[in-house]
């Protein structure tokens, strides 16, 4: 076998159609990021609250293996399925939910030409796949046959109608600005100026809607621990609970990538040591997404929780207005010839 040609398993893995769903931004990096971000969330919260946080598992790394230890504990604890639940939904709902949460990554390109789906509407594909998951969540909440699950699921339903409109509108504002629905073209258009500087209104609306969509503080309303036990995931235990918990972090991961591509320039500006094509520009996306995720989890230690009516009001009164203003700003920028 020649030294220059990679053996077929490696070249197969490096194909974008395999690499993107399975490695990055797909399953492998997702799993590692989830473990890292849960640790980071606990550590940041602890630092803001002036205490230590996880410390003893992998002591040299500051307790970085704690989420992994927690995961092992979850997997080996007893899986309880309550008698009166809808068993099919109860068991397969979380798996479906996780699948729909991770599915949008297939539309995320890593560099010009390195994408699993070469499509000129990849932005719409990602957004459409992102907004499917909450329907399954309602199904899971209903199937649990528990009042807290139902309340949590309905709260998520209320929030769903209030965040999806701002998300889609602010994304469309950016699409109007870049005159494209293709994530590659959108990222390439930000080689000079990032979207967040062109249209900060859209970025703010999208960021806040993203917080609601992923159930981060101050919008952790559907799982409000102090009010409704664990919200829609109350009846779950063991591995299925872990899957439920991972779902919200997975959505955060996916939406942080979307935010990076649309507002933070994607792989731009590319540092000199990275090639301009292939999969390596994805490193820039990963770094920026991690920064966005870090900011999102930091808010846990800063904010208390809004009531559900406050959350819905913010969605409709503030974010909807803000995203409409963002569209107006985009149209103004394009029409006046300042941009595009």
């Amino acid at each position, binding site marked *: 076998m020649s030294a220059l040609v990679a053996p077929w398993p490696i070249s197969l893995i490096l194909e974008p159609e395999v690499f993107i769903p399975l490695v990055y931004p797909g399953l492998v990096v997702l799993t590692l990021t989830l473990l890292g971000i849960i640790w980071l969330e606990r550590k940041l919260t602890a*630092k803001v609250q002036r205490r230590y946080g996880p410390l003893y598992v992998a002591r040299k790394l500051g307790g970085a293996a704690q989420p992994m230890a927690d995961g092992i504990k979850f997997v080996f604890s007893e899986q309880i399925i309550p008698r009166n639940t809808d068993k099919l939904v109860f068991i397969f709902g979380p798996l479906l939910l996780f699948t729909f949460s991770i599915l949008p990554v297939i539309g995320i390109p890593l560099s010009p030409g390195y994408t699993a789906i070469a499509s000129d509407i990849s932005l719409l594909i990602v957004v459409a796949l992102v907004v499917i998951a909450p329907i399954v969540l309602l199904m899971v909440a209903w199937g649990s046959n528990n009042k807290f699950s139902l309340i949590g699921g309905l709260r998520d339903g209320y929030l769903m109608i209030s965040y999806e409109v701002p998300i889609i509108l602010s994304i469309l504002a950016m699409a109007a600005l870049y005159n494209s629905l293709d994530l590659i073209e959108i990222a390439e258009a930000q080689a000079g100026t990032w979207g967040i500087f062109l249209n900060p209104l859209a970025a703010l609306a999208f960021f806040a809607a993203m917080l609601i969509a992923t159930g981060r503080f101050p919008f952790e309303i559907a799982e409000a621990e102090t009010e409704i036990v664990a919200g829609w995931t109350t009846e779950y235990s063991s591995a299925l609970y872990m899957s439920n918990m991972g779902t919200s972090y997975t959505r955060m991961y996916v939406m942080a990538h979307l935010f990076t591509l649309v507002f933070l320039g994607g792989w731009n500006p590319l540092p000199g040591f990275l090639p301009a094509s292939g999969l390596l520009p994805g490193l820039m996306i990963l770094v920026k997404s991690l920064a966005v995720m870090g900011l999102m989890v*930091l808010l846990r230690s800063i904010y208390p929780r809004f009531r559900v009516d406050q959350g819905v009001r913010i969605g409709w009164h503030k974010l909807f207005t803000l995203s409409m203003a963002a569209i107006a700003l985009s149209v103004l920028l394009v029409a006046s010839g300042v941009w595009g």
Partner: protein
Amino acid sequence: MTKSRTLRHLRAIRTGVKHLLFSNRLTCPYPDARQMVSERYRGMIRLNMDKCTSCMLCARACPANAIKMYVMDGKKLPGLDYARCIFCGFCVDICPVKALEHTTLHDVAYLDYKENQFPPEKFAEGGKDPYYVPGGVVMVEIHDKKGLLYKKKAVEKEEKIVKEEIEHVSKEGTET
């Protein structure tokens, strides 16, 4: 109204970031580092069997009924049950001959109930440090403004080990 709310959001985020970047921690990772306490700390109580006059005032004063009198060689001596003791210090205050005194130790977690009970001989030892602390003692002090401070208070020959331990702990935690 809206403006003041925006300002409040920004102020909240600023406070969070300020604590994230510039605040020291207020807690200490207990068995490895401990809070340094004052000499007059109301910790575990030590009995001086020679001074004790068996007056039983300590047992009468004890609000939690933690002190019980034992008979040893014809002499009555107090014994203490740490499962009941609330560390109020009344027994120390009331003792007319100063046979009881506080120590600075406060490690009263035991494996079973029996170990909580200190008959006079054990009571006279004043309680042992139940934890093994690698490298001697790393003391921490909680400063009102600066937060958690690490203090070296150890035997001279163990100083090097203590220093390593301090570096180890401060690498995990705060940078002071």
